[in-house]
């Protein structure tokens, strides 16, 4: 119980620091964010009130102290008010993020989980069947990881979309479609997700395979695996004895990967014009949309922290040795 409280306190402190940094970034970077926005808005007419609002949001041309702004910023964050996105027609940042979040969670989240589960299982299998044809999987999957992602992705689009016409080449769903939760819409969304998800899995599975295989190979030499075999346990149970221990390092890696799901798969979302957070982030950078960037950073930070917190607890649950320490 005390361990849990201590972990929670640690993560709370980290979150406070991260949010404070998020507050400071637009205030310490050189240049005037509001001027940058105005420069981009040439031709558009902005009311005085809007400009004043922007000034306040970024803490320029204001007489309020940094500390007052900071308190104000916290109030906004706690109310879920992340400011206004200038590049998306002055919509609230929280709305923009809320619209993009499900796409990223759905695509990158599912792809990451599939990649981890599949890669880990293959890693176990390759280790157990060491010395058979399965060993050839390693260089093959490593090739897909080592090759530049966009290259693989373009090849996939060219083959499955342009040549074979099996799958759409981009977007999250068809245009001019009225999103209603019926089968037509869902199958359309799935159709659009297959190719990007596939490329993510193909490009990232090798990491899971290799890390699981390597740990598994050394774990299989442990005495307790020998004892499991000597006990006359079923082969699957013997493999489980080893895999249950070998998966622990991969779990740490997986928790990090989970945290970064929210930041989206930048390249994937660019290549496939997928309407997720990654694409949003890229556009926010190119459009100097400070509020959106700030909001995205906030979400990403919190997601990474939350994923780590969950991973900590899962790890404690999976490895009884950790329960005693700290």
């Amino acid at each position, binding site marked *: 119980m005390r361990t849990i409280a201590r972990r929670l306190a640690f993560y709370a402190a980290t979150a406070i620091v991260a949010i404070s940094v998020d507050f400071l970034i637009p205030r310490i970077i050189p240049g005037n964010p509001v001027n940058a926005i105005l420069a981009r808005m040439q031709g558009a007419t902005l009311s005085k009130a809007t400009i004043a609002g922007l000034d306040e949001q970024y803490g320029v041309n204001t007489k309020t102290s940094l500390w007052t702004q900071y308190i104000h910023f916290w109030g906004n964050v706690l109310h879920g008010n992340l400011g206004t996105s200038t590049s998306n027609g002055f919509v609230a940042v929280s709305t923009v993020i809320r619209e993009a979040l499900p796409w990223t969670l759905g695509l990158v989240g599912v792809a990451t989980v599939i990649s981890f589960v599949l890669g880990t299982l293959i890693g176990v299998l390759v280790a157990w069947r060491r010395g058979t044809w399965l060993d050839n999987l390693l260089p093959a999957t490593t090739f897909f990881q080592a090759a530049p992602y966009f290259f693989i992705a373009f090849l996939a689009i060219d083959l499955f979309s342009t040549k074979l016409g099996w799958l759409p080449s981009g977007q999250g769903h068809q245009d001019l479609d009225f999103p209603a939760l019926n089968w037509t819409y869902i199958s359309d969304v799935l159709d659009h997700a297959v190719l990007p998800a596939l490329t993510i899995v193909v490009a990232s599975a090798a990491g899971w395979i290799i890390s699981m295989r390597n740990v598994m190979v050394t774990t299989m030499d442990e005495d*307790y695996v*020998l004892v*499991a075999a000597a006990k*006359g*346990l079923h082969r699957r149970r013997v493999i489980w004895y080893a895999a249950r221990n070998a998966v622990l390092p991969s779990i740490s890696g997986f928790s990090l990967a989970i945290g970064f799901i929210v930041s989206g798969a930048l390249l994937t979302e660019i290549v496939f014009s997928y309407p997720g957070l990654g694409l949003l982030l890229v556009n926010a950078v190119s459009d100097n949309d400070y509020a959106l960037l700030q909001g995205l950073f906030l979400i990403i930070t919190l997601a990474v922290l939350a994923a780590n917190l969950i991973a900590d607890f899962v790890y404690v649950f999976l490895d009884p*040795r950790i329960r005693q320490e700290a």
Partner: protein
Amino acid sequence: MSQHIVTGPERSRGDALLEIHGLCVDYGQGSDAVHAVTDVDLVLHRGEVLGLAGESGSGKSTLAMAATRLLREPGVITAGEVRLHYDTGSVADLLEAGTGALRVLRWSEVSLVIQSAMNALNPVMSIRTQLTDALAAHVPDMSRRSRRDRAVELLGMVGISADRLGSHPHELSGGMRQRVMIAMALALRPQIVIMDEPTTALDVVTQREILEELIDLRDRFGFAILFITHDLSLLIEIADSIAVMYAGRLVERASAQALFRAPRHPYTLGLLHSFPALHGPRVPMTGIPGSPPDLRMLPSGCVFHPRCRFALARCADDAPPLAATGTGGRVVACWLQHPPESAPTELARPEPGLEAWAPPATADGQAATQGGSAA
């Protein structure tokens, strides 16, 4: 409660239980192969404590692992036969058995207590799971409840309280882990328990306690033990008979008493002088000069001759056969024991006049008779 309880004619102690014939094990293949075990014949009798002694790398563990088909890559069994005699009188050839048949007889007939109990228990599984999963695998109709009861009973046998069932290995001391391991090995009442250096990692006090418990359990349940260790003085305390291995070969086998009081092989003699006896007068330790041979390029003739201070001219050319000498079923592979050669006095002490393996005397009883003759 299990199908492994004796159903056939009760076999008497002393019948052959595990017979190993001409077993050869290589690590690797071709010209680089390491000949870890060469042509070993060994018989473990019902209820016997058979000690297997030798330096590191002499092939003791490899022999046991190969005989139970637990040998790991790149180990290969190149020749031999291992026969297991069931209670019912039927015989299984372990080297021919398929995976399914092996799985059935593992743990229910032959169980294993391994070198380092520290690593022999799975760190992420509870003691209860590890005690009961062999039961679950071998006795499918056993209920969860009765598996738990059996686990409690097993822990009780080695003096561990039932509240340790939920513990994980890291929460137990080294001695407790080894006890859990022993309890686990007895879960299915096997005929044979193979113990590979079971107490090496423990301090001498714990070592002594565990050995005494072990012999108690053996007397209660009558299983045979193949006890592998490099510690010959420990074997003399607990074993009925002792087999000594050198460079993958058996060089001498005799009853513990006979081997201790009247060794016939120079290597056995060297081993006896390498460890302080647990009882008896002080004897200077001399050790054995040189180091074990490279198992890829064994010396010609007798593999021990380069280190043997009694070596004869023929030892470099002819390998001595493992031959019976004297009384009591002793076998030894040494030309010195073949007439017309006469063995030096150290290797020609009078036989203590015991049978091949005596009913186990208590460790103290053995110790009492042992004092004078060691000098």
